[in-house]
């Protein structure tokens, strides 16, 4: 993410949200950057600030950390959302940052509550322009608009996507230019892109074991972007599937037919507890 960017984060669960918003907040506080977080939650329960060693009271008094309630930032006296007030708040916080001695400002808000209100989607879309104006022209501001995808629905989320230049996602766990491994959350598992061969088995194994340790039940592998899997890779997946808790499966979503061919050739029955999931181009269940 670069200065002037106004990104959208659609998250499937709080872990996914925390893995994007946490580093975003922490990176600012670790350097001379200001954080503006619009939320009704207390600072110590926010992503990146929960169970951290930072002195939150000191950060607040130096105005490096600004945790603003919705009433302060964007609601009218009667509790109605006011797009103009939000734009003013963002603009004011941005302008004051420089005088306070910060070289940049990072702003974020979870907008899911707005979308779930009657007429909410239209209000959100109409205020995106104002938010954009408060962030984009600046060389020292960045913003993340957080949305709980399950609560707002895929349809509304896709409409929002169009009004954001940058879509945020969790950093890849591994990327050597040939294979990319990324944690995914809806459904939970890993996304594999590129080519999997013996020289990369240990990396997949490491991240698969971590994913298996953090959740119970099925693990999904989104392999829509996987161009090649070696035979040893199938053996590796079968080994890990055998270690899943009772009843759990390793599910391969969006397998390309040319990659699935090798599995069809040996037979899915020879890969116990591995099974095909969503078809190519289809939605994962």
């Amino acid at each position, binding site marked *: 993410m670069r200065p002037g960017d106004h990104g959208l984060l659609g998250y499937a669960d709080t872990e996914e949200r925390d893995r994007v918003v946490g580093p975003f907040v922490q990176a600012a506080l670790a350097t001379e950057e200001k954080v503006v977080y619009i939320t009704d939650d207390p600072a110590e329960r926010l992503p990146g600030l929960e169970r951290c060693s930072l002195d939150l009271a000191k950060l607040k008094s130096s105005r490096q950390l600004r945790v603003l309630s919705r009433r302060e930032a964007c609601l009218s006296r009667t509790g109605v959302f006011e797009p103009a007030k939000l734009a003013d708040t963002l603009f004011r916080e941005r302008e004051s940052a420089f005088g306070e001695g910060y070289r940049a400002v990072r702003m974020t808000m979870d907008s899911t509550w707005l979308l779930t209100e009657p007429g909410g989607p239209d209000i959100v879309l109409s205020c995106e322009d104002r938010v954009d104006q408060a962030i984009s022209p600046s060389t020292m501001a960045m913003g993340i608009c957080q949305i709980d995808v399950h609560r707002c629905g895929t349809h509304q989320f896709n409409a929002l996507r169009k009004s954001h230049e940058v879509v945020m996602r969790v950093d890849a766990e591994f990327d050597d230019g040939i294979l990319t491994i990324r944690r995914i959350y809806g459904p939970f598992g890993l996304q594999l892109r590129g*080519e999997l*061969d013996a020289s990369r088995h240990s990396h997949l194994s490491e991240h698969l074991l971590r994913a298996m340790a953090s959740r119970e039940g099925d693990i999904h592998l989104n392999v829509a972007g996987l161009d*090649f899997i070696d035979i040893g890779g199938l*053996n590796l997946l079968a*080994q890990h599937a055998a270690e899943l808790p009772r009843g759990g499966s390793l599910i391969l979503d969006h397998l390309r037919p040319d990659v699935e*061919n090798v599995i069809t*050739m*040996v037979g899915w029955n*020879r890969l*116990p507890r591995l099974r095909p999931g969503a078809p190519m181009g289809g939605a994962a269940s």
Partner: protein
Amino acid sequence: MTPFTREAVEPRPLEHRAFLFGGMDDFLGTAVPFVREGLEDDDRSVVVVVKGTRLEALRDHFPGCVDDMFIDADAFYDHPVRTLRSYLELVKAKDPRRVHALAEPVWQAGWSERETLEWARYESLINEVFQDTGASALCPYDTSTLPPRILEHARRTHPRLVQDGGESESRRFAPPREFSAGVDRTRVFPTPQDSEYLPLTSHDLHELRQWVGDRADRHGLPGQDAQNLVTAVNEVAANALRHGIPPVGVRLWTDGPDLFCEVGDHGYWSDFSPLAGFVPPKTALESGFGLWTVRLLVDLVEVRAGWDGTFVRMRAGR
């Protein structure tokens, strides 16, 4: 719940017989009673895999039978390793009933000696793969059209022979391991002088896959066959790098419609078995899964494990 009967736990021996016949009357004289015997036994499931005219003649004898009992041999016998896998799936699907098969392998006049031998090896492997399934296979061989060397293979790969209305032990029978080793000894293994060579020095095989993929495309292999060859060569190379002794490299050349890739290293594969990679593993977790999959993916795999190194040659045709 199915009661745990004595039959379920005891291994049931395979009955594998070659049926040497001459002409249609001789064929029907034995084939019809064999099929009828299977149909009358509730414990058995009949499959008839024979060639065109004989298939029609048998169908006429059993008009009341379901159509999927009859399979055209030309469609069934397309690739020895794949056919063996499909046959095993069939036997598993019929379980606990025993397969009662009239199974006539296809022998093409235009085949090379190598191809003929690989199908003879297939017949021999039946003894190994189905040994405890209780299956009964009667394999017709037409003595009026097949050359003597194929009839000799029939005697070497079937423990019992049925001929002229009688049954006898085949004195020429060779156990599968011995037969397979014999097939391996007949290989010729020169590598053309003008073959291309790619040394493998790193475990990262991305460059190898591109190198093989480009040449497979240029040779005109259909897309999926090209990708299957890449997957096969990648697996053999990864194994050579892991278990072999450097230098490790790949040679590639073409001969008519065929493209060959040979992975070589200087290690001695001391426990190489002539059955390696032919017997379908139960799961991907069993050893031998890799070489078996490689054999499924390409037209032919030849392994030479000698004192001067280990060489695995793979062939894929246009």
